[in-house]
């Protein structure tokens, strides 16, 4: 019972099983990788210097137009 003398079923299992497993592993890795949170830095944003408050004794006072 169940035994497949021709080996056809086992070949089919291998033929489809390996691609499925590899794709599954890649997907799992991609999904896992997307949860690590690698890129946390904000993009650059230039602000013309006219702040409401300037620290005293700071490095260089921003340029005041």
């Amino acid at each position, binding site marked *: *019972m169940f035994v497949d003398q021709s080996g056809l079923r086992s070949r089919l299992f291998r033929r489809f099983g390996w691609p499925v*497993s590899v794709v*599954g592993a890649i997907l*799992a890795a991609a999904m896992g990788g997307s949860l690590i*949170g690698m890129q946390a830095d904000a993009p650059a944003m230039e602000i013309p210097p006219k702040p409401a408050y300037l620290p005293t004794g700071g490095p260089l006072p921003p340029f005041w137009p």
Partner: protein
Amino acid sequence: MSRHQRRRQSLLRPRRLAAPPLRFVMPLSLLACLLALLVLRGLATNEAFHDTRIATSVDKTTVPETLLKGGPIIDARGDKNEHPVSYQVPDRTVVLSFDDGPSPEWTPKILDVLAARDVHAVFFVTGAMTTRHPELIRQIVAAGHEIGVHTFTHPDLVYQSETRISWELAQTQLALAGVAGIHSALFRPPYSSDASALDDWNYPVIKYVGSRGYLTAFIDRDTDDWKRPGVDAIVEAAMPRKPGAGALVLLHDAGGDRTETLAALERIIDKLQGEGYRFATVSEALGATDANVPVHGYRLWAGKVFIWASQAAVLTLPVLVALLAVVGFLNFGRFALMLILAPLHARRSRRRDAWGAPVTEPVTVLVPAYNERECIANTLNSLASSDHPIEVIVIDDGSTDGTADIVEAMALPFVRLIRQANGGKSSALNTGIAAASYDIVVMMDGDTVFEPSTVRELVQPFGDATIGAVAGNAKVGNRDSLIGAWQHIEYVLGHNLDRRMYDMLNVIPTIPGAVGAFRKEALRRVGGMSDDTLAEDTDITMAVLCDGWRIVYAERARAWTEAPASIQQLWSQRYRWSYGSMQAMWKHRRAVTSRGPAGRFGRLGLPLVVLFGVVAPLLAPLVDMFLLYGVLFADAPITLASWGGFILLQALLSWYAFRLDGEKPLHLISLPIQQLVYRQLMYIVLLQSTITALTGGRLRWQKLRRTGEVAAPVEA
């Protein structure tokens, strides 16, 4: 084999690495996908990593006085990190900001109001909401509004580590990239208000976020619209403190009914526009470059993958939950059936006259033996003290270890020895059946020990002429090791309580090979034992049932067997059992559509065995995935509590089963560990034998190694 013979390959030639077997790789890779999907779904619904704690404000000794009194926008980026500066919204300018969204119900309506008045605003969105409603973010960006980062899971960052804060920022940027192809330079911490609320706890957070390049936007005017104070109150609270002064106004587009916010928004815009105010985004108000910067390449695609996977996860979850419900339904259904039927069975078996007149005529005991050197003497000695008249036939199935010689040397008067060339267990049994002198045949294994009363108890049900076979109560003798104790629990709960249940439904699917009795007439009618399957005991039981005989369970007919003592032995035993029972189920599949007793078994017994014995265990890994997800990513206490509840329920049921069987409950202490190791082993074995069955692989009998340690009954 010597080392020289083995080394066929030159050491210089690299040896080809054996590929890991597909049958393990495939389930593992699919389970990994499943767990990843669960976590992604948990993030999108803000269930994973959720933290509801909110800090209350403390001292402000470390915050510069001027920041506290300054504007709502704080720049702690780059070289300003040591000494952050703050910006006011310019005069006659209002920045409208909406937090916590986007929400599918309210954000589109708010966008409509803004579009109708040609006003730009800022939306501080959470990563979770972004992931769940990508279309809304695209609409917001397309309408020219600005997006700010409001963290992914909306925790109070005061309680979070820098790693966690960094993760919250990164994950939100990833979602924004995937949804709209942008990153944002704007940030607003959850639970924040105006700059004067900076304190010793949240100031470091602002500085850290600044060091990662973010401009933090607090507020000037808090409308408290989430408390729904009425439209008038919201409009009032949104007005700048001094006429003509600039203001950054906080509103919400998610988190409940926003009808008041929507009505107030129209009035705020109309009123302020009438006063000559302009509406701007943060970057417009500051005259800065765009806060939303397009992303390209790897970051864009990583974001897209994240969003696609999250969407898929949200969509597949109902399927997973449905499967989980199936598992739960099957498990609890089985528990319920056991709880209803086992007491009935126990009551029946207490009645001594259940089967009519006592059976006293002698019976034949068949002992098929293949290499049972260690155990056969114990087995025969235990039969010698039987209190029921018996003849014993030992069928030596071509043993190579001198088992037959041991039997011969014992020279027991009631024992007949038949030697045959090795032909398998079913052929040995058929030989024995043919040689049996009496009408009732008891079958046992060569590694099993009977109590004096076992045979008598086992054959009493034959007083009822409709009963064709009787299942005995197999017990684990070597139960003092952990693995033995686990099998002991499994035998008492899984096999014996199950068997009581099946007995009451008259669909016992398996008479254990270790202890069972058959009417010779029933065996003859079904054509004796067959070697079609590796579980000849299940096969013959099903055949006898289909032939219309009744099969009952005699719990007092105890037989002590030596359970496999190593994981490897257990593995090969269970591999054969599950493969064999699947073969037997498949062999008797036509019973489903048959008439009469076979149809009854096919439509009641077979589905139960398939559901409880195959479907439930095959879906069981799903339960473990949910457990793992719950403990690691969602609410660990609740997950552990519900798991504990399930264990407790199982413990109660096991305790009841132990009581019915007259066993000491001592071994139940290993139940929790059993649930964490043994259960998994069992379903992996089942999965492996299912794969073998599906792919048509060949599985052979494997002889288990025995030590002969089960000599006499452990407890009478």
